[in-house]
């Protein structure tokens, strides 16, 4: 009981202390049309969660297969709201000096050397660990920025589980504790997007602080719209055919299913080749744009050349 009260008070307190930015978006439809203006086609779920992220001042954790537009969503939101995109690319071995802040050692050293008369050490120390010698890294920069920013923490599943803890403070309180300096509070609550390819399970602590959005491969309708929106001069019928073939390929048991970006590459290829209608030959010749593994390509070609009955048999065997 006590815990609950203090929690709520904390949150109220937090909201008072931070400078409240005006809400960025009016309503869900606004988000949706805004995103489609920068040619990102969002479905209701995506637009709704972006809207909620703004209203609740919470980060969004985006998961889903590779190449479904997770990173692009953050970029498009930045573009649409006219904010600066600050990006932190995660990798194994990322540490706080790369993600949060670092002391500018060289400058500190110069400062000591430039000091001529002998002064009280305590004074110098105080001098050395001041904001002048602090190098902001993406996370700190994002909350200290004066202008509107969107923070993108890309492929967060690549960092070790221990490093994840670095993110927790900034994601829930929008502040950074620096031992020598105290707590640096943010000037704003940026929109934060974290993306993950799901190579490992993220920690509960991180998930709890985020809204969760899963972006799957688009359905037929949306994929067709994406092709039309992204590739001007695309024939409607061809786009429809492309989307349908891609959907069929995604149903196969492949190592790596074609992503949206690969679909677009394929569509561009077909457009350049001046193809008007896709037949088995064209598909066979260009399928390497869509699929990147030899075994996948062979499988797809086999699917489209053989008669469907035999395919079903092999599927049965495979599953057995």
């Amino acid at each position, binding site marked *: 009981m006590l815990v*609950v009260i203090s929690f709520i008070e904390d949150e109220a307190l937090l909201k008072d202390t931070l400078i409240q930015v005006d809400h960025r978006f009016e309503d869900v439809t606004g988000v949706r049309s805004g995103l489609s203006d920068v040619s990102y086609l969002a479905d209701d779920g995506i637009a709704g969660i972006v809207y909620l992220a703004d209203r609740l001042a919470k980060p969004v954790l985006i998961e889903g297969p590779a190449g479904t537009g997770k990173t692009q969503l953050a970029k498009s939101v930045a573009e649409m709201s006219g904010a600066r995109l600050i990006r932190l690319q995660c990798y194994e071995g990322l540490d706080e000096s790369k993600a949060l802040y670092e002391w500018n050692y060289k400058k500190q050293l110069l400062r000591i050397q430039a000091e001529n008369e002998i002064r009280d050490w305590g004074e110098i120390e105080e001098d050395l660990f001041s904001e002048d010698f602090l190098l902001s890294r993406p996370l700190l920069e994002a909350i200290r920025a004066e202008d509107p920013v969107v923070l993108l923490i890309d492929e967060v599943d690549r960092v070790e589980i221990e490093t994840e803890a670095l993110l927790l403070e900034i994601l829930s309180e929008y502040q950074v504790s620096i031992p020598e300096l105290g707590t640096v509070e943010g000037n704003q609550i940026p929109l934060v997007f974290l993306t993950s390819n799901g190579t490992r399970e993220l920690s509960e602590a991180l998930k709890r602080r985020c809204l969760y959005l899963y972006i799957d491969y688009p359905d037929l309708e949306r994929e067709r719209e994406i092709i039309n929106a992204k590739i001007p001069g695309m024939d409607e019928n061809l786009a429809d055919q492309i989307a349908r073939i891609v959907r069929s390929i995604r149903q196969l048991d492949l190592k790596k299913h074609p992503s949206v970006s690969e679909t677009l590459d394929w569509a561009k290829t077909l457009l350049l080749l001046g193809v008007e209608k896709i*037949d088995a030959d064209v598909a066979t010749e260009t399928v390497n744009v869509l699929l990147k593994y030899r075994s996948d390509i062979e499988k797809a070609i086999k699917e489209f050349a*053989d008669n469907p009955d035999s395919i079903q048999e092999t599927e049965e065997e495979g599953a057995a």
Partner: protein
Amino acid sequence: MSSTSELNESTHIEGDESPLLGLLNGFIVELRLAGLPVSLTECLDAMEAVSHIPIEDRDAFKYALGATLVKNHSHWKSFEIVFEVYFSVRGSEYEIQENQLENLTDDELSESELKQGDAPSGGGAMSGLSPEELQEMLFRALLNGDQAMLRLLARQSVIRYAGMEPGRPVGGTYYLYRTLRNLDLDSMLDRLMNESREKALNDLTQLEERLEQDEYKSRIEELKKQIESEIRRSLVADRGVEAMARTLRKPLPEDVDFMHASREEMANLRRSLYPLTRKLAARLARRRKYGRRGPLDFRKTIRHSLSYGGVPAEPKFKYPRPSKPEIMVVADISGSVAAFARFTLHLLYAISSQFSKVRSFVFIDGLDEVTRFLEGVEDIGEAVHRVNTEADVVWVDGHSDYGHAFGVFWEKYGKDIGPKTTVLILGDARNNYHASQSWILKEAKQKARKLYWLNPEPRAYWDTGDSILGEYATHCDGAYEVRNLRQLEAFIEKLV
């Protein structure tokens, strides 16, 4: 449950207890009962989230709850079912929508009947249709991809064919089966294909045919889903939300028992396996990197002594090139663990794609090495097929005989077990009362780095009947019950 009571109190603190909060509270309790991990913070988030969205928008409401309460995509399906059941009979807005749908489709109905030319004289009411006419309308709707019509037809077919009786204690799958059997969707697909073949000007090419078929299949799939949720809705109306939610509760993917997994669940399991083996690989690799310290590196020490004016103040050590872990997996693929074996083979394949030095063995009463089938093969289906058909695992009668299998293993491959080798044995240790030959495991354990036993049976069944796990387990570094992904993950955690 303590957190639930806290939740109740927290709503008091926020002041007036609105009906919405009470409703959400109940929903969250239901989610927890379904096994979803929902924390207190997440509940509060959900309550705040729904205050920002128009409450009459059902989809937005669902997404808002989903984004705040469900943080794992594999839990989404469970969430959807609970949502559908819990909110199906509530909310008058939804009722109105239903009526509108009815009106709307009634018009379309008569239109499509006109098109057919043989409209029944009874007017627009669907109950007056003969089975053939219903079938015909279904055919048209599928052909044109008419969503509203399909929804209406799904409802009609449930009313007509499911034979639902109030209070009858059978599950939804029974009604689903009855409905689908009457609709005969397989021959419907053939009819649809024939129709589009006729409609085409020239012959359909292989590719076009395939695409058409996929399109119809997805429409039929959609119809099945409609029917399923229609049945669910009727059942909720009959039995009430709580009872229905209870019967629909399904285990989450990580809790699905390997031994009793359905085909669909198995496919999900397979997908979840790869991250796990990567984790396993990462764990073993980290151990290799940080776990050991080599002898003094003289050259490096001297080099570093230069910065201390020639005094070797900081000794440097060699970090030996990490040796690759060698893993030997010995798996039982006999009938008693058939379902588990299917999973085991996938596990074997996943492991061998992560580690370069994996040797895989399968046995029933004989034992054979299957490394060659799994290595460098890109298609898991083919690999499993080859293991099942080509591996020589039957010695006498095809009933598992651990003693003999271990004997073969020891004789042929025992010399390959070294101090770097980790041996994993997968099986239920049901030995059909043959000799146990447990001395082999004892010897093997002494030679190997670690020896683990993973058993797909519940711990309570160990050492009952012909299971002699206890005898084997005394010679292992550990015997673990691994019946689902959660337990497998826990085992991997322990491995370090």
